[in-house]
């Protein structure tokens, strides 16, 4: 299984440069120098254009909950990759790695989303690719 996973990662790394672009400049909205890792509970999923989005409640060590807005690719791109509107559900516990919005708001582009069982979903969202 481990070998298969390593193979998978290598295969997907080859695919990454082929990721499509979003309808806007990625670099103007997100700062790859502001990477964030967020662990929390999914409170809403919007399977909408131009981007699918989900919202996350993240509790810090003091118990304070912050609400994050996470951007994915468009539903069309995600469906073509094999994902669906059922992939992520309200109540799922997830860990998100992404780039925060340049304006500092609690909004990020979700590069990877990992479910509590370790399964990664929505890999290689197209707007993960820097604008070209």
């Amino acid at each position, binding site marked *: *299984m481990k070998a*298969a*996973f390593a*193979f*998978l990662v290598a*295969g*997907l790394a*080859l*695919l990454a440069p*082929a990721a*499509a*672009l*979003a*309808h*806007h*400049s990625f*670099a*103007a*909205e997100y700062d790859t120098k502001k990477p964030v890792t967020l662990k929390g509970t999914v409170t809403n999923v*919007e399977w*909408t*254009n*131009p*981007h699918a*989005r989900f919202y996350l409640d993240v509790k810090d060590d003091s118990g304070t909950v912050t609400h994050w*807005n996470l*951007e994915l690719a*468009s*539903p*069309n*791109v995600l*469906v*073509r*990759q*094999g*994902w669906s509107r059922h992939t992520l559900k309200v109540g799922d516990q997830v860990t998100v790695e992404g780039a925060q*919005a*340049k*304006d500092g*708001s609690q*909004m990020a582009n979700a590069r990877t989303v990992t479910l509590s*069982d*370790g*399964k*990664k*979903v929505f*890999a*290689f969202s*197209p707007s993960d690719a820097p*604008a*070209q």
Partner: protein
Amino acid sequence: MKSKLVGLQLAAIAAVFAVGAAAQAPTTAPAKSSTLNPSEATAPAGGGANPDVVRRRPREVAPQGPTPRLPDGHPDLSGVWNGGGPVGDLAQGLAPGETIPLLPAAKAIMDKRQSKDDPEANCLPTGIPRIAPYPWRIVQTPTHIFFLFEGNIHSFRQIIMNGKHPDDPDPTWYGNSIGTWDGDTLVVDTIGFNDKFWFDFRGHPHTEQLHTIERYTRKDLGKLENKVTIIDPGDYSKPFTLTFTATLRPKEELMEYICQENQQDAQHMQGNSGLPQNP
């Protein structure tokens, strides 16, 4: 009344598409099975019961084969395509060593533009020759050719074959397009543009004097070349020509994409559009 008109418009396009598809089907060269990159062909796919397997559809590459033709002998350009125009930077289509002949006043406009104001980011049309990074379909009939866009706000372009431009067209996002055949190349001559759309993420501008001449040549089954000449004495010191290539997506169908549904990007975008971060 408005919704009725839109409904009629869509019905007309659907009818044209159905007729066009029926007419073209018998003579379209059969596509060889799309091939996969070796690395992708063996990549796990399907997911299903195995939680460690990331589900991903294998990426298609352009199919090989001769240029398909219609009964009248003209190349058949119909199909679902990807690419074929600039996205990030108009200069991507220049030949090596060439530069964009931007006039000083146009450069000043570009220098002031902010990414948040890009019409495309605000779910307005790309205009010409910009393309959205989503599939689009050519529907070809003897009298009209339509470009149906999945992205680019789910809009369409209409090219009237062997027509005539109006004397004083209203300025619009896609202008007034007349098509003619030059041998195996479809030539699309367009005037009557508004000055609202940007050519790319960087904000290359244009004026209402813009005149584009696109030359579409289906080089083979899987590749459609677009050689487009930009003529705009308002913003550019001389005409210049860019070359882009669209790739056939033989198994693709267009999907709905209503950009205005949940647009939250533009209000979070920052900075000048022309910065090198958008090369």
